[in-house]
């Protein structure tokens, strides 16, 4: 039933040829992947991780570097990127959760780790080319029933590619969340002490949530790098994390599709109405504050409540 929601997205490119509109959608899709995955650890497990942008950026670098150094295809390079992210997440997650860092302290420590990651990439010049960043010239190619292997290039190709990736992410998340794993996440979010006495291994499931979220963020990062064709240390910056957080909050942290809405609004809106940088920044801050104070469940959440009320 839910699948029908996706139909408009598939017919959309037929309606608008505009490269500019499609670009907004592509960026929204890719960032939505990051937002949805972040919501696993933030919205569903209740842990405010600040490592998300780092996972996003590290994967972006790993993939592009693997491609450029070993001359392999995007898909081959994606694998080590995801594995590397998973290993990192396991290490950092174990540290944080072993020491039972809660709420704010977890946020700070993960933030510290992502800053360290950024500084390493920033100063590891001979590999990452430092602040000048790297150009990513290769494009991923996929096999299609019609036309066999095709390089993904141009807006329409990327539109469907990123859309597919987003659908994959959403599907994976919803499957995980409806399973016993999802129940454990909820238990941890709502009452850790009780969860423990019910025999739920908090450490294990927090770690799982953290790792899964980062692994999906890794996919988003690699896509982003290959779509923009350029990577720079700013991918790992705090602001990147904050953008993702605000997408989740705006859309709503209680649902899977909420963050997607958030990603669309925050990516698209600035280009719908032309504003000076300052006004836009103010608007952004205002929106963030109002969402939190007035509709804490975010756009989608609020709509849902209304529907239930009606």
């Amino acid at each position, binding site marked *: 039933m839910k699948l029908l929601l996706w139909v408009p997205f598939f017919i959309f490119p037929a309606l608008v040829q505009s490269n500019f509109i499609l670009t907004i959608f592509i960026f929204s899709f890719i960032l939505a992947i990051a937002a949805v995955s972040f919501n696993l650890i933030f919205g569903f497990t209740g842990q405010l991780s600040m490592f998300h942008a780092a996972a996003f950026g590290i994967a972006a670098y790993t993939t592009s570097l693997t491609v450029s150094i070993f001359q392999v295809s995007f898909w081959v390079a994606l694998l080590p990127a995801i594995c590397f992210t998973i290993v990192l997440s396991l290490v950092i997650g174990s540290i944080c959760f072993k020491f039972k860092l809660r709420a704010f302290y977890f946020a700070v420590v993960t933030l510290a780790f992502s800053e360290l990651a950024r500084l390493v990439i920033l100063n590891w010049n001979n590999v990452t080319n430092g602040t*000048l960043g790297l150009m990513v010239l290769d494009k991923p190619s996929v096999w299609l029933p019609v036309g066999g292997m095709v390089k993904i290039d141009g807006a329409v190709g990327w539109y469907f590619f990123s859309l597919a990736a987003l659908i994959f992410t959403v599907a994976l998340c919803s499957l995980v969340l409806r399973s016993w794993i999802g129940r454990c996440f909820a238990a941890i979010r709502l009452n850790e002490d009780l969860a423990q006495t019910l025999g739920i291994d908090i450490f294990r499931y927090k770690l799982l949530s953290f790792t899964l979220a980062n692994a999906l963020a890794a996919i988003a990062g690699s896509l982003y790098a290959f779509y923009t064709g350029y990577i720079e240390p700013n991918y790992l910056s705090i602001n990147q994390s904050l953008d993702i957080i605000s997408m989740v909050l705006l859309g709503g942290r209680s649902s899977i599709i909420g963050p997607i809405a958030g990603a669309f609004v925050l990516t*698209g809106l600035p280009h719908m109405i032309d504003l000076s940088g300052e006004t836009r920044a103010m608007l952004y801050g205002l929106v963030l504050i109002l969402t939190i104070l007035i509709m804490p469940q975010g756009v989608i959440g609020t709509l849902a409540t209304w529907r239930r009320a009606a």
Partner: protein
Amino acid sequence: MRRFIWLVILALTASPAAAQNVLKIGQIEAQTGANAIYGYMSSQGLALAVDQINKAGGFKVADKTYTIELIASDTRGDPKEASIQFKRLLETEGVKFVYGPFLSNVFVTIEPYAKQFNGKFLLMGGATRIHDFLGTPDHDFLLRTWNWDAGPKGFGNLMVDRLVAETGAKKIAMLFQNDQGGKVLVDIYTPLFKQKGIETQLELFEPGTKDFSAVLAKLAAGNADILFPSYSDAYLYDIVRQATEGNYFRKFFLVRGSLGPGLKNKDEIDDYFVYVPKYFEQAEKTDSKVAKFVADYKAFYKRDFPYDQAPLCSSSCYDHLFMLVEAMKKAGTVDDVAKIRKQLLSMTYEGLWKIRFDEKGEELFNFDILRMKRGGQISVTGVDAQ
């Protein structure tokens, strides 16, 4: 979600189709954010130029009068924002002349897309990375609107020559921000100094640093004769003050930034070399064009004239729009991009600056080298890069 899609479509249809006799000019610069220092001045200068041309009733090409519509959105130095805005300029707005970007990260992101439109538009930006693409196949749309430091005619060479001639420095300490601009400076100047047999010592600092005494002390321990500090005034004020107060350095060599920090500490400084595209404080008195520009700026923005940053107006804005218009008049067309480009490359424009492009499309303009001695007496040397 669907409602949003409708929003998009509405916005799309609502965007006005190019009206008669209106020439659309686009600009993609960072007007705000950490790297806005160049984009900020560029966007201000361009807006001012557009205003003046339109106030004058537009301009005449092939007995048709055109007014200019400027579409300048703020990239905040973010490649994502930039590429979306850029695509919008070329596709939905159908812009043929785009100013900017000054940031290399933005440029390399839009380059692959831009070259699909090769021959259909002109991109006039200052980014250092543009230099690498000039004159390469299907990059005829590129013009670099900033003097190149290196090379025989580059101001870097001229500055270093003068430094050697006038001070005979043996060792120079470089203190740059650890970012795009800083790295570029290292790449360009380290070899230059080496050629002239000057020893170099490098320290990079994190963006946002305000207290430099530690790193300055470290550099001073290396006994360099002269300090070559970061390129943005946001840091120069602090570096120069702390360097002199702490008695670490009293000689400075700058290729970016302004005289401001030097003047502020003039009694503590022995020697202060600066490259500035133009020394407005003086040019204002001697050159009527400059005086007019300053007056117009104050009138248009209703705020004081930013002498520190105004030299950056040379980057890609005020003059370049007038130059473009002139080229259009000469070429007798507003949309035959190839013709207009040929005109631009062949002409020399006398505005605030004397601007000429070399055969590859890289700009050469005259600039000033300032030298301030202890107590603040300043000697200005105008250099004609052509």
